[in-house]
């Protein structure tokens, strides 16, 4: 639940999602759900030449299970808040 809440707060930010198949997609975080499925808007692929089929894709739904990393802007993260939330979650669990 922690990361679901965390991503909900990040909606509207520019992120780069790197998938397990090495595809990296940059876009605006539109929405996230309990499975950490991600919807991105205004997408562009980082290495466009390697993935020509993605040329006209502007919005996409990414299944949570295939995400390797979600790269965030360094100032988009309140690390202390996250740290506290993690501590609280660990205490509760």
């Amino acid at each position, binding site marked *: 639940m922690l990361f679901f809440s965390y991503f909900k707060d990040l909606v509207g930010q520019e992120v780069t999602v790197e998938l397990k198949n090495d595809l990296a997609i940059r876009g605006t975080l539109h929405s996230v759900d309990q499975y950490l499925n991600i919807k991105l808007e205004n997408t562009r692929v980082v290495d466009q030449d390697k993935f020509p*089929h993605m*040329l*006209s894709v502007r*919005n996409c739904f990414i299944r949570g299970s295939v995400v390797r990393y979600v790269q965030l802007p360094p100032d988009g993260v309140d690390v202390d808040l996250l740290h506290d939330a993690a501590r609280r979650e660990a205490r509760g669990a």
Partner: protein
Amino acid sequence: MSWAAPDDIFFSTSLAAYLDKKLLVLLRDGRKLMGLLRSFDQFANAVIEEAYERVIVGDLYCDIPLGLYIIRGENVVLIGELDIEKEELPAQMVQVSEAEIKRAQKAEKEEMLLKGLMRKRMEFLDLD
């Protein structure tokens, strides 16, 4: 999964916004399917109508018609909405027949095998 109200379609992660749209579906095995989304569920299982597989080898591509497909959600990597005003593929790509793309696929596979084989032969040299 609770039922979404009509307005929720725009803000949630559900695939409802993609219904009846022409989509690109990337599968875990690397295949690229395209077609119209007719149905989905909470596992991202999907029903695709007028589906075709776009096979790409280098600058060659071919669309192989598949018909009506049900995709099991665990195989789905990404579902992308295609912008109809943009070109789906770079201009230098050439459409070829199914037979030709299958030949190109085979040639690419053999090239990969050969590369792998040569790499293995060189490994004993321990050059790193």
